């Protein structure tokens, strides 16, 4: 199926809140965050759509982006069908103060680690995820690094974190002294 057909089928079935966007480099479906689990279940189980491969879940911070008025996060899902050979792209937005999205890890196992990564690096909370803990950064890391307003740490467990530049002076010493 062509992606435009798929998007119109989905927009027609799930009604309000969904919008198929066809201009730009990638045609995608905009949907509200609360619908993502039902849309994904339909995409996986419907025999004509049959999207069995979740390729990627990406999280984007829209704060400060030219042309954007809000500070939302955008979560982008790329799905593919290995039998029907078509691709689908879903994009949803969540507000910065409460970035909660229903988890799709029960539908595809791939989503388990992708959602942990989105939580770790961007701070998006996936409701219903079996084990939402940090995956890439250290377990007791503070902050969500890929946010545009992230502050770099000065110290981590006694180790000086900052980049010193080309100045003379202390490098940080070594524990032998």
């Amino acid at each position, binding site marked *: 199926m062509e992606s435009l057909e798929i998007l119109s089928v989905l927009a027609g079935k799930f009604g309000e809140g969904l919008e198929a966007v066809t201009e*730009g480099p990638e045609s995608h479906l905009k949907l509200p965050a609360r619908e993502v689990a039902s849309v994904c279940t339909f995409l996986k189980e419907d025999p004509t759509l049959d999207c069995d*491969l*979740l390729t990627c879940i990406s999280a984007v911070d829209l704060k400060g982006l030219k042309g954007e008025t809000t500070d939302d996060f955008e979560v982008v899902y790329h799905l593919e069908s290995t039998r029907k050979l078509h691709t689908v792209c879903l994009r949803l937005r969540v507000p910065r103060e409460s970035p909660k999205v229903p988890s799709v890890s029960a539908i595809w*196992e791939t989503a388990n680690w992708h959602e942990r990564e989105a939580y770790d690096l961007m701070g998006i909370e996936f409701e219903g995820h079996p084990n939402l803990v940090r995956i890439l950064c250290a377990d007791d890391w503070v902050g969500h690094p890929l946010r545009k307003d992230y502050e770099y740490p000065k110290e981590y467990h006694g180790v000086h974190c900052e980049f010193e530049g080309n100045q003379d002076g202390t490098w940080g010493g070594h524990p032998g002294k």
Partner: protein
Amino acid sequence: MTEAIARESSVHSAPDIRTEELLLNMGPQHPSTHGVLRVIVRTDGEMVLDCEPVVGYLHRCFEKCAESGTYVQAVCYTDRLDYLMAMGNNLGYALAVEKLAGGEIPEMAEFIRVLVTELNRIGSHLIALGTFGLDTGAITPFFYSFRDREMVLDILEEICGQRLNYNYIRPGGVAYDLPEGILKKVEKFLDHMEKSLVEINDLLTYNGIFIHRTANVGILDVETAIRYGVTGPNLRSTGLKRDLRKLRPYGIYDRFEFNICTGTGEYGTLGDCWNRHIVRMQEITESIKILRQVLGSFPTEGEHIAKAMARKVRPAVGAAYTAVENSKGELGFYVASDGSDKAWRIKCRAPSFHNISVLPALCKNTMLADMVIVLGSLDIVLGEIDR
């Protein structure tokens, strides 16, 4: 085979012996984990009940660093993702940016891209087979494969000056022209590689001990693979013919004829460790085939690449996802642009991230030594798992 041995062992047949589970920590510094990977293993004696890979020990903030520079400056960060197939990463990123920026790539640059990417694919598979042999205990094939890999690195060093992190394929084309006489060297290498592959196969692939250790171990079926997002040789070895170079051809791959390798199932079953290994061996043969076609149809004249390269890349506003077939699987880049010369967001979909997530499903009720074999056969690179 391993389950039969376990059932016969005296521990399980003597009901009055009390056994305890042991929580064993493998890594992050370990000779067999192919990098800084930590695997927490719950064992009952020698049998693995469950394992959990813990990643993040090499998290190098690729995505944040790539946002800090221009699109062309970010190419050097993409090298260091899957550092064994750096040209493939560069290519994936360049295609992703070109999808947003538009523009035409010179014909000569397209041919050079295929040439260096396929050479790099051979190099990457050679390391995979060398280190997999080390995991099974065979040390000699490691030296053979590294000897052949040194020839690939010599050619690539002559082209772009670097042995490992090339920074060569950039958005808009490639960084430098090919030096004189390089195509003859490539041809000589291909002739040598065909003979050497027969030698390595005799040493390792069809070796009785290797077959005994890898056949019927870690059998992956198609549904589990797709559920976990496994792609590349690991998915093809289960029998599914899926290769992005044929499915959604990029560059000039549609001009070349090559097969999609799914293994033979000669020893063991489809989807086991031996089959994953033979798929990589077959892919080296297919890459040699593509390279011979590239050499046969290489354009004799073309504009100077360096002059045609854009210094500044300013894509249109928007975001798109582009994927290429790397030696580990489907490598994708989701690039979001705000119209300036710096990227707003670059997300990398790394194939090894998914390949390692399937380890717990493959290692239930196997021996600890078999778990090491499964890990080696998945061919992971920590640079792209942790980014």
